[in-house]
């Protein structure tokens, strides 16, 4: 066993990140994504959560929507990462490069994550607004932002892995949203309550532990739990491994 191929991994990671960042920003894709994300998040926070009616210096109504919006927006951002490679025939080109496959997979994921981070960064007016309303707990807000960014990576990892299974970006998006919905809704009180009623309280709790919603709710209270961070990072690792497996399967002749 030769162990991890660090040189090949880093070379692939850097090349793939640059390529994908160029693809996002050379076309209207990233700009449209960021604009729509900010608009929808703004409307939900302002209108549905009645942010300014609460009168509290708290970003809870703003963070509340993150898992639900990420569930839709992150698969959209990741849907073409691998499906388009297969569709345009460039998968053959990148598989012929002397780089390690995990490097390419991680590089593509990091590029999408960079765009998501850019979108989150542009929500700073909400942070300023809450400080105008009154004395805000900025440390807690920063921690929640950090957890939101990590959670965005987990949603993107789902979208990227699913996109390696198909040549259709639309199918990748729909499948990605479906998987993301299951992992979000598993922590929804309506779902956990129903499961607890049918299978018992322990089953409801057990299912909730697999939900992004559950682990993000702790962060929304301003508490950064190591368990939650490990859950999301572990999930990203699992998706990267599956993504690598799905792409490497093509070397065996899958079309």
């Amino acid at each position, binding site marked *: 066993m030769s162990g991890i191929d660090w040189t090949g991994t880093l070379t692939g990671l850097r090349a793939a990140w640059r*390529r994908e960042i*160029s693809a996002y920003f050379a076309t209207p894709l990233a700009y449209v994504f960021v604009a729509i994300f900010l608009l929808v998040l703004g409307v939900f926070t302002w209108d549905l959560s009645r942010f300014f009616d609460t009168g509290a210096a708290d970003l809870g109504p703003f963070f509340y929507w993150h898992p639900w919006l990420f569930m839709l927006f992150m698969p959209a951002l990741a849907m073409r990462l691998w499906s388009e490679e297969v569709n*345009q025939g460039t998968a053959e080109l990148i598989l012929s*490069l002397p780089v390690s496959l995990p490097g390419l997979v991680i590089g593509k994921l990091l590029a999408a994550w960079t765009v998501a981070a850019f979108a989150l960064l542009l929500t700073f007016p909400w942070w300023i607004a809450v400080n105008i309303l009154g004395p805000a707990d900025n440390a807690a807000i920063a921690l929640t932002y950090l957890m939101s960014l990590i959670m965005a990576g987990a949603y993107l990892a789902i979208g990227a892995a699913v996109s390696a299974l198909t040549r259709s970006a639309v199918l990748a998006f729909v499948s990605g949203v479906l998987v993301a919905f299951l992992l979000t809704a598993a922590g929804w009180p309506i779902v956990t309550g129903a499961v607890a009623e049918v299978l018992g309280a322990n089953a409801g709790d057990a299912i909730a532990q697999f939900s992004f919603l559950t682990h993000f709710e702790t962060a929304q209270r301003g508490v950064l739990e190591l368990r939650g961070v490990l859950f999301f990072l572990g999930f990203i690792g699992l998706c990267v491994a599956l993504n690598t497996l799905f792409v490497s399967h093509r070397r065996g002749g899958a079309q």
Partner: protein
Amino acid sequence: MLDLQNLRKAFGPHLAVADLSFNLGKGEVLGFLGQNGAGKSTTMRMVAGVLEPDAGDAIIAGQSVVTDRRAAQAQIGYLPEGAPLYRDMTPITFLRFMADAHGLTRGDRKNAVERVVADARIANVAGKPISALSKGYRRRVGLAAALIHDPPVLLLDEPTDGLDPIQKRAVRALVARMAPEKAIVISTHTLEEVPAMCSRVIVIDQGHVVADQTPDELSARQPGGLEEAFIALADSREVSA
């Protein structure tokens, strides 16, 4: 430079390449011929490390594609069939990406991009989106990408497909310039390219080598020349099958 050892690949019940073996030395330009579905592209993909062989190996400049794929791939410049490219990029940004992927340093990257842009004669379109380029220019960008790391072995799958006569002549001249220092495999079903570019011809059918000769020797097999010889080889396999 290139040593194929009993390469074999099947897709389900269909045997695409059957125990294919040959070797190629520096300075040789091999015309790799066969009918559609004969196994040419599958062989090229296995040598390029895109497909895993079911059995056998390809040794490229001393590196095994089976046991050390990355080292073997670093020795190859590969132009896939259809020259797939990222259409949202320009030739320059695409070539930089390819240089990055081959681990070239910033300084080497600049020199390499300038060299291949000149070699492939794409300077006049280097800043345009690839999506706006003609098929011929796209193929030349793909060829430039295959040369970016100056590999000792080149695998070119239909390199002149879709090119006009002037562009074909430019590709032939480029291959002739590179030939003394490299081993080059050109997969094609355009027979006119063979005597113009190749010093040796291998014809495969149903994954087997059915001829391995110089273009002149192969042409001499039939009074009608290369085309008749190729058809006769294909017919004989069909009859024996």
